[in-house]
């Protein structure tokens, strides 16, 4: 199988799983226990937190281990439910569902949701974000690297604009980013970005499932109550095996970040070049921009209208290539990705969109085989539907 769905989950890095197994066996104590095995586990936990804080360039007290990106995002959004009065949130219209859906819950509870639409290039405008912030605004949430288009938002600019606006109106605003698709792949320096919180996940870069990180500059009220772990923000006995594996995956990721980045970029170039001769291909966003620096070199979305993405994905799967799609035939109506709708992608193009994502062990040959198979299958189907 040629696996081109790394943005869904990366193939596990055996070394990280070995770390997890080792921790599970050797350091099985509960970090809250006061005996020797407990203390040993507590010290491993402290070291793990420090390691992550060095990678993110933040204080170790600002690192909260969670069960993954979705939980990290939910902690931030659900925190607002504890505020006495509903206000407004400013959210990009192309968030992952773990932001998009909790925000819907806020809306039900009387919050005003101000969506920020990206341009056709999948990027949002910092001035647009700032202009939507007022004295009712509690939170700005922006996805750092979009999981469908790979668009990397200009977070530094956005933070600067929002902070400036915040000073003018004399009202502090919490800025959250979802950096799940960036972690270990694209540089994320928390100090440089200046955000208040950020979400990360372990399994997108070869770590295990069920572990993630929430960077949190200052403590916030949360809905969870329990044994006080993770500074009471995320109670529950710590998943130490997964945490140590995550640390290993993240360390490996950042150590070779540039090398992997360059390699991934070369694969993307190869892909874009090869795709250009496949009939009916549409790049989302346009071919002219996808190779620019403001897009992840690990993700590409393409479309072959009128072939439904669901069908193309199935055919590719049968020929040994795994890709993904956010669109489907649902009850005779087209269900299309909210990210692509927000970008104003024409319905037919969005309905046919597949996402290709790769990683450090993807080879040039994988890309070439994919291109060959894709070209054959699209060629066959296009002749039928044209």
């Amino acid at each position, binding site marked *: 199988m040629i696996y081109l769905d790394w943005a869904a989950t990366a193939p596990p890095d055996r070394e990280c799983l070995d770390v997890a197994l080792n921790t599970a066996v050797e350091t099985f104590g509960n970090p809250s226990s006061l005996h020797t095995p407990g203390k040993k586990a507590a010290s491993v936990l402290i070291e793990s937190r420090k390691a992550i804080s060095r990678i993110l360039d933040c204080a170790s007290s600002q690192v909260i281990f969670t069960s993954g990106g979705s939980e990290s995002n939910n902690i931030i959004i659900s925190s607002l439910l504890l505020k006495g009065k509903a206000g407004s949130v400013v959210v990009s219209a192309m968030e992952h569902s773990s932001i998009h859906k909790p925000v819907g819950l806020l809306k039900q509870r009387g919050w005003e949701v101000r969506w920020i639409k990206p341009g056709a290039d999948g990027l949002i405008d910092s001035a647009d974000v700032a202009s939507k912030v007022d004295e009712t605004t509690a939170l700005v949430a922006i996805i750092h690297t979009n999981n469908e288009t790979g668009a990397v938002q200009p977070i530094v600019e956005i933070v600067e604009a929002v902070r400036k606006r915040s000073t003018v109106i004399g009202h502090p605003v919490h800025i959250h980013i979802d950096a799940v698709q960036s972690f270990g792949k694209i540089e994320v320096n928390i100090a440089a970005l200046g955000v208040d919180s950020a979400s990360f996940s372990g399994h997108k870069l070869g770590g295990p499932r069920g572990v993630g990180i929430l960077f949190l500059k200052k403590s916030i009220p949360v809905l969870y109550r329990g044994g006080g772990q993770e500074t009471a923000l995320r109670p529950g006995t710590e998943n130490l095996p997964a945490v140590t594996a995550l640390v290993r995956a993240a360390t490996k990721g950042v150590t070779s970040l540039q090398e992997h980045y360059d390699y991934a970029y070369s694969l993307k170039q190869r892909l874009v070049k090869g795709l250009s001769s496949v009939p009916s291909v549409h790049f989302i966003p346009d071919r002219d921009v996808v190779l620019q620096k403001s897009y992840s070199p690990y993700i590409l979305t393409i479309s072959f209208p*009128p072939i*439904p993405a669901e069908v193309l994905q199935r*055919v590719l799967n*049968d020929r040994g290539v795994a890709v993904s799609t956010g669109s489907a*035939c*649902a*009850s005779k109506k087209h269900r299309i990705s909210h990210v692509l709708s927000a970008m104003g992608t024409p319905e037919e193009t969005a309905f046919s969109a597949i996402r290709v994502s790769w990683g450090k062990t993807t080879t040039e040959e994988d890309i070439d085989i994919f291109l060959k198979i894709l070209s054959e299958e699209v060629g066959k189907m296009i002749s*039928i539907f044209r």
Partner: protein
Amino acid sequence: MKTLFLIKIGEISLKGGNRSFFEKKLKENIKNRFRGIPVTVKNRRGRFYVETEEQFAPLVQEGLSQVFGIVSFARSFEVEKNMESIRKVSCRLAGEAARQGAGTFKVEARRSDKNFPFNSMEICREIGHDVLEAIPALSVDVHKPEWQLNIEIRDRVYLYGRQIKGPGGLPVSSAGRGILLLSGGIDSPVAGYLMAKRGLKLDAVYFHTYPYTSDEAKQKVIDLSRILAPYLAGLNLFIVPFTEPQLAIKKKGPEAEVTILMRIAMMRIAQALAHQRNAGAIVTGEALSQVASQTTESIRVTGSFTDLPVFRPLIGMDKEEIIAIARKIGTFETSILPHDDCCTLFAPKRPVTRPKYEATREHYKELCLDEMLEKALNDAERVYSRVENLEK
């Protein structure tokens, strides 16, 4: 301990000379429904009696409510043929009913054994009086009783209280065999249910257009046939690989007629399957004018490609009425799962709603699909869903 169910059969008892034929089918169907559990089925003078071990009673109760031909049934008690025994059990049943909240009651007696020394009126009066004395919480209401005690004096004496509604209709297989066009939608399972209710034994056919329809869509149809099987006394589903004919129609047929031409091809396969399976009818879930291929003109064209009667039990129904039945028989939740046929790909943007009879027939013939359809039917996969459901 044994549990006895007494079963009333309604319409079958009106069947005059053919009555024994219907009764025999019903008996077979009840026996098959409970294959694998200890059940005896007896048929005496217009009543069926099903006896089982107490532990299986809930399973049997559920099963009986799915066997067509049964109008109602009740958990019954066989007692000795004397007033003292009747009195004893009547008071016990009345006590239970009162504990479950009944406040008023009535006694209904039928005496088909005229040798019994009391007539129906006398039995009602006597037993009613005894119950009133024994159970002070109960009072008599002969018009709208909250609980009714039934006493039947036959070769033996049977007592029963609450009656449970059966599905009615006629025993499956008493009206021959039919081929049901089953899709993953809401309508066709309901059509199958309704025709089985009139005694038709069904085989189902599903047209699978992989990769344009997903394996999940196929699984959904298999799941639907499993839900239907207890009502249909078991169900053979024939999954016909339909991609090749579908593509041929898309490629060669006039754009606006793609859907109706596809329906004709399906009808042709159903007809061929009917011949193979010795079936005398085709069943579809069409409702008049619901979609382009279900207008009067379209139905005329598709129907003209088979010499078998095409039963369309939903033809005059609204969607709400169909959904209500789908909910009742438990297919609705599965039918609305999102794995739909990806027919958006094949459906024309502006489908013809009033096909010209001669022209469309001609267009279909020009496609020369016969050989392809024959091959498709030969390659069909058969999935059998058993009638009995002993998993619970």
